[in-house]
């Protein structure tokens, strides 16, 4: 179902007009109300009068995660504090968290975006949705919650963790949809298998996001839980879950581009790249009041597709994120993305898709260890059998990454199943 056809199926020219109009407004807002923006625009020699259409966006300076830290907590607000009604934050990996303030309208627009997502997943009033994202400063819980209430579904605000209780509620209330991180969905699936409750569930749809996942992981979740698993996309800085979503065609993530305008740039030069190029994703919030972000650099690498989708939506689609420039590990001169390791693990039958990468430097050489779990039925009682598995995986990874890792075998279910964003690598070279 399409929640808001007038926007989601709008012809491209009308969309450009709407985006142009909104960009003018938001640029005026930040210029007039937010000192750091005004300063930076002055430095770049651009004023709100220079912004006449969405194409003029390239004249505007970028913002980055660093700006959110530098102006922590309220320095980037473009609305008076009296209008802010909610704060969300993400814990930065280093130093201060990132704080985002929302006005009443911001929350309403976020709920609207979330409603479009859930409708695209086929959910509506008739559904019972268990929200197992963490509630609190993290945008996942309250974001999904607002979306569920907006479409009129029964919302179970259970939050993250407590797997026993999750299973009990899911069963007793016959939840039809589950919203959580994909890695927690896998953990839940395993727990359900063990509990014997699996066949007594009524789950049909998974609303998964907040961390990168692969097609193979999707297949595994779908098989283990017997559901259709959809990706919901969001970033704390721009808006939580709801910035984009898949549709029934599952051919990319539709961006709610009347609210969040995406661009692809060359991460080195900052140049806008032609349609269809792979590069760094940049977002401008077109309607935000509390803390609009202009040309925010996400560090996510992807591609945008402008063809009309078979689902009927005309909104631009984003391909699966191919990696984050932040996550990238440079090991012995080779670029390694944790997502590559995950993809290989999902392909090699004998292994679980959980892993942890440790990179260190010993005698001036980078070490590259990957700890993995063998599926229970593939453990053997012979050292040689286990070594064979290690070698098989190492060879497969070598062919994909171009680098031979040291495989460390872990005991079954000993690796941490993430309940928030999965921490999948430790670079000890940075600690030295």
């Amino acid at each position, binding site marked *: 179902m399409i929640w808001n056809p007038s926007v989601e199926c709008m012809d491209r020219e009308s969309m450009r007009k709407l985006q142009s109009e909104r960009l003018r407004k938001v640029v005026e807002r930040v210029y007039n109300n937010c000192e750091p923006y005004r300063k930076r625009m002055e430095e770049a020699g651009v004023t709100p009068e220079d912004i006449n259409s969405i194409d003029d966006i390239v004249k505007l300076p970028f913002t980055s995660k660093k700006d959110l830290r530098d102006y922590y907590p309220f320095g980037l607000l473009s609305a008076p504090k009296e209008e802010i009604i909610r704060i969300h934050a993400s814990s930065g990996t280093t130093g201060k968290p990132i704080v985002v303030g929302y006005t009443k309208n911001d929350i309403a627009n976020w709920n609207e975006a979330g409603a479009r997502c859930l409708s695209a997943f086929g959910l509506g009033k008739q559904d019972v949705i268990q929200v197992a994202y963490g509630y609190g400063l993290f945008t996942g819980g309250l974001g999904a919650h607002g979306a569920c209430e907006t479409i009129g579904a029964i919302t179970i605000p259970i939050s993250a963790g407590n797997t026993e209780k999750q299973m009990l509620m899911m069963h007793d209330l016959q939840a039809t949809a589950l919203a959580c991180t994909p890695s927690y969905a896998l953990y839940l699936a395993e727990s359900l298998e063990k509990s014997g409750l699996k066949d007594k569930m009524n789950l049909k749809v998974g609303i998964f996001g907040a961390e990168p996942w692969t097609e193979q992981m999707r297949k595994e979740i779908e098989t283990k839980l017997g559901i259709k698993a959809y990706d919901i996309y969001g970033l704390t800085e721009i808006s939580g879950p709801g910035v984009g979503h898949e549709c029934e065609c599952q051919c990319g993530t539709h961006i709610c581009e009347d609210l969040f305008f995406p661009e692809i740039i060359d991460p080195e030069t900052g140049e806008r790249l032609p349609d269809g190029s792979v590069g760094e994703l940049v977002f401008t919030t077109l309607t935000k009041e509390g803390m609009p972000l202009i040309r925010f650099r996400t560090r996510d690498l992807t591609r945008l597709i402008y063809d009309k989708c078979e689902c009927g939506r005309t909104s631009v689609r984003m391909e699966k994120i191919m990696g984050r420039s932040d996550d990238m590990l440079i090991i012995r001169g080779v670029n390694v993305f944790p997502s590559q390791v995950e993809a290989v693990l999902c392909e090699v039958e004998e292994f679980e898709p959980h892993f942890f990468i440790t990179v260190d430097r010993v005698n001036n050489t980078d070490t590259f260890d990957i700890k993995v779990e063998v599926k229970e039925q593939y*453990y053997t*009682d*012979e*050292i040689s059998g286990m070594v064979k598995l*290690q070698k098989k995986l190492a060879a497969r990874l070598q062919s994909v990454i171009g680098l031979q890792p040291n495989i460390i*075998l*872990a*005991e*079954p279910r000993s690796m941490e199943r993430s309940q928030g964003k999965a921490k999948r690598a430790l670079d000890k070279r940075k600690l030295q």
Partner: protein
Amino acid sequence: MTTLQLSVFLENKTGRLNDVAKVLAEAGINMTAFSVADNSDFGILRVLVSDPEKAKQVLKEKGFAVKLTNVLALRIGNSAGTLYTILDKLAAEKVYIEYMYAFSEGEQASVVIRPNNIDQAIEILKANKIEFVG
């Protein structure tokens, strides 16, 4: 003729062997023989216990990777050369030993072997009047 052996995968961290022993002790299961095969990364504990099925179940519940394997437990006496004679007889028929370990029960020395062809090994050992334990 065959004996069920329990094998447990152990990550190379200190104390995992103790953890296994503790789980078995708490379930009232005796270990009659064990060996640990390891390389630098991980180890495999092989153990003969009083109740293999129950041992498997309690260890699985505690999250261990456990397998049951058929092995042969042989009473070989204490005289030098008995073991060699047995292995030689098996090798002559192209039966090879994947792994083995020894243990003693009172006066008697015993050995656990895992041949690549267990049925053939049993035939040969029986023909040579080797005594099986249990």
